[in-house]
């Protein structure tokens, strides 16, 4: 690989950047204002904060968090632990399966010319246009017939196929921007197509893979209707199902819901924090020249 081009030596600085902060700071505050209300609801006893515009709680209690985290069933099984574990396993598996299937499919669409290529691309896109209302009942019958009800595999399959079309299109678009010189050079050196895919294309696509990973994770992480419908045991539910339990027919326990919403968002933020350096490190900027 060629050496990265030397940029002008600038370290992180405030200088010449104040205008960016002048735009970003108020915008960030405005963005966070509704979220501060979620925090306030979660920390207020009984979940009914005052009606002022002040988003900071006047008295603080952790009872909403304790009630959620301490949830047990009548046999004393620690349900919250099961829910968190299930959610992490299902969302993690969805991410891995979704990305594995999408990367290979996107690579085929980007690098091969074959009969049915256009048709295939469009077929993936079209699936996103099927309104879910048509699919729910046939999907249940399918899961029942294949014995995938009550199984993590069934949910992972549903979630990853939901995420695949976006991932395929996103990755295909990104693969298209990677110059082919490198691959051609590697072919001359005798590398197989598969090696090129694994060793050259995938590492260069880290920004796009990071985006699709976050997307796949989120697809599985927040879903509750399918999880509640397909799973038949409380220890098999996921966190969003538990969260939705606070919404009743007549009333909603907003304090508990807010606490749950915060608990559910933390892993997402952590994942994004871990992934974000892949989004910004200028990976292709230096190593490949167009």
């Amino acid at each position, binding site marked *: 690989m060629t050496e990265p081009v030397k940029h002008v030596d600038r370290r*992180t600085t405030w200088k010449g950047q104040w205008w960016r902060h002048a735009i970003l700071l108020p915008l960030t505050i405005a963005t966070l204002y509704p979220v501060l209300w979620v925090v306030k609801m979660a920390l207020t006893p009984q979940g009914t904060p005052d009606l002022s515009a002040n988003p900071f709680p006047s008295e603080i209690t952790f009872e909403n968090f304790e009630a959620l985290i301490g949830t047990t069933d009548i046999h004393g099984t620690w349900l919250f632990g099961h829910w968190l574990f299930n959610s992490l396993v299902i969302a993690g598996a969805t991410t891995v399966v979704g990305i594995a299937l999408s990367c290979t499919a996107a690579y085929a669409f980007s690098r091969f010319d074959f009969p049915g290529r256009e048709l295939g691309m469009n077929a993936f896109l079209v699936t996103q246009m099927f309104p879910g209302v048509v699919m729910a009942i046939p999907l249940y019958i399918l899961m029942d017939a294949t014995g995938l009800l009550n199984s993590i595999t069934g949910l992972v399959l549903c979630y990853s196929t939901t995420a695949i079309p976006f991932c395929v299109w996103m990755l295909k678009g990104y693969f298209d921007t990677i110059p082919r010189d490198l691959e051609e050079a590697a072919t001359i050196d005798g590398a197989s197509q598969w090696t090129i895919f694994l060793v050259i294309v995938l590492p260069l696509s880290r920004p796009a893979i990071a985006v699709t990973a976050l997307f796949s994770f989120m697809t599985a992480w927040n879903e509750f209707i399918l999880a*509640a419908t397909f799973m*038949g045991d409380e220890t098999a539910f996921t966190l969003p199902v538990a969260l939705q339990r606070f919404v009743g027919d007549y009333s909603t326990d907003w304090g508990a819901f807010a606490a749950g919403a915060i608990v559910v968002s933390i892993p997402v933020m952590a994942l994004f924090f871990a992934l974000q350096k892949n989004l910004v490190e200028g990976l292709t900027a230096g190593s490949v020249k167009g």
Partner: protein
Amino acid sequence: MMPLLRRALLTLALVLLPAPAAAEDAEVVRLWHAYRGQEQAALEANILWLQERDPNIKVDILAVPSEAFRTKLTNAVPHDNGPDLFIAPHEAAAQWSANNIIQPAVFPAALPPSSFSDPAIEAVTYDDRVWAVPLAFKSLALFYNRDLVDRVPADLESMALLGAEVADVPFAYEVGNFYHHAAFFHAYGGRVFADAESPVDLDTEAMRQALRYVKDLVDSETVPPETDGALVANLFNTGKTAFVFNGPWFLGEIGPTINFGVAPLPDIPGTGPLRPFLTVESLYRAARSKASDRAVAKVIAAVAGLEGSVVRATVGRQVVALEPAHDDPRVARDTTLGAFVAQARAAVPMPNRPEMGAVWEPANRALRAVVRGSSVPTVASARAQQEVGFYLRPPPPPSSPGPYLVLLALLLLGGAMGTLHLARRSNLVARVRASKHAYMYLLPASLGMIAVVFVPFLVGSAVSLFAHKGGEFTFVGLKNFARILQSSDYPVTDPMSFWFTLVVTVAWTLGNVALHTGIGLGLALLLRDPWMKLKGIYRVLLIVPWAVPNYITALIWKGMFNRQFGAVNGVLDVFGIEPVSWFSNFFTAFAANLTTNTWLGFPFMMVVTLGALQAIPRDLTEAAEVDGASAWERFRHITLPLLRPALLPAVILGSVWTFNMFNIIYLVSAGEPGGSTEILISEAYKWAFTRQAQYGYASAYSLLIFGILIVYTLLTKKVTEAGAPA
């Protein structure tokens, strides 16, 4: 943190100790419910008590979110995955008995129907059969703050006067919700169905009088007009009002410091008492239940019997339906429950008729239109009646499937011949062979998509050629499509017509996608500079709207748009702008929805753009900078064209998702005013779930949406390709 630690230790102890009850060959009875909090605790106590006494029974208890309860039940029961028993309101009995979800109730010998109060048994009777064992009553009553008032006037007007003396808001309840409004409707002698046989009648004098009365209450500022459950709780808990109308579920929402009392609802002077709807929560036996009658009877006795009822009353604070339980001293001394029992006697049972499902939407729309002032009671009632008729009209006459089958066969044949012809001409077989590699890469993803997406879609689409009524599908050909497209029931410019909704949906989609992409792109460009301080912090904070479940943030936005108490009007007030009634006008309601969804959606586009920006070699822009290109020129001629391939899929898919994103609209404007801010997909859902389970009609709606999206995408691609540099 102490309770948490203690609970953890308790859990540990329970895991370590040998399991006490449940004999090896105990019979399993599966029980589903949607209870939470103290009601759940009481039910679980009943079950534990039963298992302790009778180790031959093991109850598998499952708490399901109420929003998923019906879907789960109606899917699971016909496929033998359902429960043996489940708890649900009585009014679903009609629909479920027609669709074979439930079977008639069997009362244990010690617990004959005569031991329950008459309205309870009446409520669960449909078609001369008793379908469930009644458990508890739910109805509105009057909650008052004892620290603010020392007495409860018997009539509504004296109550409002007293309320105005002691607090800002004379009294509060969910004005725009027909479930709550029904208390007024019934007070004037109105009934949704005049008797067991008669059709829905909303265009009556009672309906008009009740609407007029409530409009006067709003106009005289006696009740706040825009109220939901959270706001009512807020007003009561903060002492801003001394009186609210609410149900027993409110007991769990009242602040610990509030000294409150409960009384039956007051009278309308000169007319009579307010009479709320009465719901009877009941224990149903699911169809296809495999547990023995003996075991099921034991569970019923444990939950609905005397001991069980006393526990549900004292621990769960339920208004239990078993008469003898109210004589028990532990229950009798609870004055709160006593007030609810008195209220239940004056309440009107929720009609147990399948047609009831079609009443809510039109009744709510009429009510809100009058409260808002955009309609008058006479017009609104007539319109509600007309809409109910629209939802309840009979399915189209059956068609003969013969011609359709011939057409299908011809299409398949033509398609096959065309493919063959093409294959021979373009040497397809050889080219397919040569592309073996490509297909191997594609295979795993395609298999998954075909099994989980395409097959269910084809099956679901086929339903659009049928009409579904009472569990039976009849073939009607394309008549569902014809009905939708002709829009014969409403003029094209009416908010309820397909074409009006289509225009709103397109505006909704374009507005959202433009804002998401614009803001997302702008922020990504601001945040890409690698030498900027705090960029990591900004990035993480700015994706928060995507990370937090939108169910709660949408509600907070709705609260911020409240006319009287919302933060948005608070900010406008600072600039001297009059408060805006956001949900009374189409454009402001649309703007409220759009703002909320923009807030929810821009982080996704920001992340996608940040990723896509990495495909652009920095050398290029830097070289252009050296050549003296302005920032705008660099963006327009270098960044944007290079972003296109990675950004376009996100924009196209973003439009597709937004097109079908109904939950934000449902949560924020709820279609207000008058259903005008609804989008197409919400219609499809309503036909499937709230309007008589007309799956065929819903499926036809979905297929039309599908067709529109394909056209929309083709157009988008055309437009963007035309704009692309050659």
